[in-house]
C-alpha cells in the first residue's frame, strides 16, 4: 500500500463528490425560479440514493467477480470482503475501500446528469424510482463491461480512462430517450424559458471544473506522472473548449455569453474524460476546440428536431462524450500510457474502430434500457407532474417549499 496513492485517491473521491452539488448549481441556475429547489434536489439527493445502492449491490455488480463478461456477482453485497487491504486488480496500491468509494462518486453523478433532460416536469417519486432502476440496470452493467475485470468491452480493447462511455455517453443518450418519452415542458417553443440565476450556473461550472481534476487525474489510481498528465489535459481541453464556444457564439449570435463560456468549459471536460490518461496537451487543445463546434451544432439541431432536452444533456454529454471517445481512438499514444494503446495518428487505425464499437453499444444499450425503465416507471407511478403542478412549479408541488422568499 502506498500512502501517496491512497491520499490522492481519497482526495480525488472528495473532488468528484463536490461535482454533485456543483452540478446541482449548474443545472439549478438554468432552470426557472419556481423549479430551482426541485432541480437542486434531484442532483443533491442522488448522493443519498446511489450511495446506498452502491454499497448494497452497485459496487459488487459493477466491479465484482465476473459472470460471462456481462455482470459482477453479489459476492461483495454490502461491501462484504471490501476492506482496507488493496484489491489485487483495482488500485493495487490503495485500500480496496478507497477504490470503492472513488467509484461510488462516479456512480452517483452519472444518473444526476440525466436529470437535466427532464428538468421542471418530472414527479419526484418517479425520479427516485427511475434513478435507482437506471443505476442498477444501465450504469452497473456498463461499468462492468468497460472497467470491471472480465468486462467484455474492456476485453475488446476499448479505452475509457475516466468515463467517456460509462458516464457521459450513457447519461447523454439516456437523456435523449428521457426527453422524448417524458415529453416537452408546457409552453416549450412559445413561452421563453430563461435561466433564472446564471451566477449560480457559473459557480456550478467552476466547481465542476475543479472537481473534474479528481474525476480524471484520480482515475490514474496513483499519485504519479499519469495523474499529472490527466490533470493537465483536463485543464487544457476545458480552457480551449470555453474559448471555442464563445468564439462560435460571437460569430453566430454577435456576443460571447457567460452561459456559453460555462457550457464550453463543461463540454471540454466531458470530451477529455475518456482520453485523459492516453493523450497529450496538443491533442487536448484539438479535442477542446472541436467539442464546442460539435455540441453547439447539436444544440442548434435540437431546435430543428423539436425535442425538449431542457438542459442539453444529450447536446453536451452525449455528443461531447461521443467525440471524446472517438478522439481517444485518434490521439491515444502508448508513449503517454504504456498500458493503453495507440490511436489512428500513432499508426493504429484499429483503435478507432474499437472505440466506435464501444460507443455504438453504449448508445443502443442506454437508449433501449432507459426507454424501457421509463415506460415501467410511468405505469407504476406516472412520470410527469400534473399540468397545474408544472405551472405552479416543482418547488411548491413536490417539496412544499419556495426557493426564494425575499
Amino acid at each position, binding site marked *: 500500500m502506498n500512502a501517496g496513492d491512497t491520499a490522492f485517491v481519497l482526495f480525488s473521491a472528495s473532488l468528484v463528490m463536490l461535482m454533485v452539488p456543483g452540478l446541482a448549481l449548474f443545472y439549478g441556475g438554468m432552470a426557472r425560479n419556481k423549479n430551482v429547489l426541485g432541480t437542486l434536489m434531484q442532483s443533491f439527493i442522488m448522493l443519498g440514493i446511489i450511495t446506498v445502492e452502491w454499497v448494497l449491490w452497485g459496487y459488487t455488480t459493477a466491479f465484482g467477480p465476473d459472470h460471462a463478461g456481462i455482470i459482477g456477482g453479489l459476492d461483495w453485497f454490502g461491501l462484504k470482503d471490501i476492506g482496507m487491504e488493496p484489491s489485487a486488480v483495482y488500485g493495487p496500491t490503495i485500500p480496496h475501500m478507497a477504490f470503492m468509494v472513488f467509484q461510488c462518486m462516479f456512480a452517483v453523478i452519472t444518473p444526476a446528469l440525466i436529470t437535466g433532460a427532464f428538468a421542471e416536469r418530472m414527479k419526484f417519486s418517479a425520479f427516485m424510482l427511475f434513478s435507482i432502476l437506471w443505476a442498477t440496470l444501465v450504469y452497473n452493467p456498463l461499468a462492468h463491461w468497460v472497467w470491471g475485470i472480465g468486462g467484455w468491452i474492456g476485453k475488446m480493447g476499448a479505452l475509457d480512462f475516466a468515463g467517456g462511455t460509462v458516464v457521459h455517453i450513457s447519461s447523454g443518450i439516456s437523456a435523449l430517450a428521457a426527453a422524448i418519452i417524458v415529453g416537452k415542458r408546457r409552453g416549450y417553443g412559445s413561452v*421563453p424559458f*430563461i*435561466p433564472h440565476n446564471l451566477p449560480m450556473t457559473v459557480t456550478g461550472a467552476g466547481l465542476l471544473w475543479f472537481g473534474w481534476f479528481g474525476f480524471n487525474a484520480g482515475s490514474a489510481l496513483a499519485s504519479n506522472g499519469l495523474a499529472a498528465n490527466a490533470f493537465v489535459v483536463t485543464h487544457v481541453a476545458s480552457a480551449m473548449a470555453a474559448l471555442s464556444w464563445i468564439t462560435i*457564439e460571437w460569430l*453566430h*449570435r454577435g*456576443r460571447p*455569453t457567460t*452561459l*456559453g463560456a460555462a*457550457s464550453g468549459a463543461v463540454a471540454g471536460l466531458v470530451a477529455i474524460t475518456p482520453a485523459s490518461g492516453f493523450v497529450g496537451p496538443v491533442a487536448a487543445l484539438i479535442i477542446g476546440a472541436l467539442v464546442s463546434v460539435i455540441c*453547439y451544432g447539436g*444544440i*442548434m439541431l435540437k*431546435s430543428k428536431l423539436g425535442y425538449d432536452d431542457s438542459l*442539453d444533456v444529450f447536446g453536451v454529454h452525449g455528443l461531447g462524450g461521443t467525440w471524446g471517445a472517438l478522439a481517444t481512438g485518434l490521439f491515444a499514444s502508448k508513449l503517454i500510457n504504456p498500458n493503453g494503446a495507440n490511436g489512428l495518428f500513432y499508426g493504429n487505425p484499429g483503435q478507432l474502430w474499437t472505440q466506435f464499437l464501444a460507443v455504438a453499444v453504449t448508445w443502443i444499450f442506454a437508449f433501449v434500457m432507459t426507454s424501457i425503465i421509463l415506460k415501467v416507471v410511468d405505469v407504476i407511478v406516472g412520470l410527469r407532474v400534473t399540468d397545474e403542478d408544472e405551472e405552479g412549479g416543482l418547488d411548491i408541488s413536490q417539496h412544499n417549499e419556495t426557493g426564494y422568499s425575499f
Partner: protein
Amino acid sequence: MKKIEAIIKPDKLDEVKDGLAHLGIKGMTVTEVKGFGRQRGHREVYRGAEYQVDFVPKVKIEVVVDSELVPQAIGLIQEKARTGQIGDGKIFVMSVETVVRIRTGEMGKGAI
C-alpha cells in the same frame, strides 16, 4: 391632496429622490416594476436560442403631496428623470381622499 405616480428609469431614482427632498417632499414609496410604452425591449440569447424580452425594468415612485406643490414636483421629476431618449417614463397625478398617520391618528394635510 394629490398622489403623484412617476414611472422612471431606475438609474434616475437617486436624483429624483434628492430633488424631491429639496422641495420638502421627504417621504415616498418606491417599487421596482417592469413595463413598456414606446420603448421596445431587448433580445437575450441563451445557448444560441434567441428570446425577445418585451418588458423593460423601471422604477415607480409614489408620493402624496399638498395640491399646491404638484406643479413644482412634476417639474422637478421631469427635470431630473429626463434623458431625452424614448423610455424616460410618465407621470400620473390623482386625487387623494384621506391621509392618516398610523402612529398618531392624525388626518389630512398634517399627516402627509
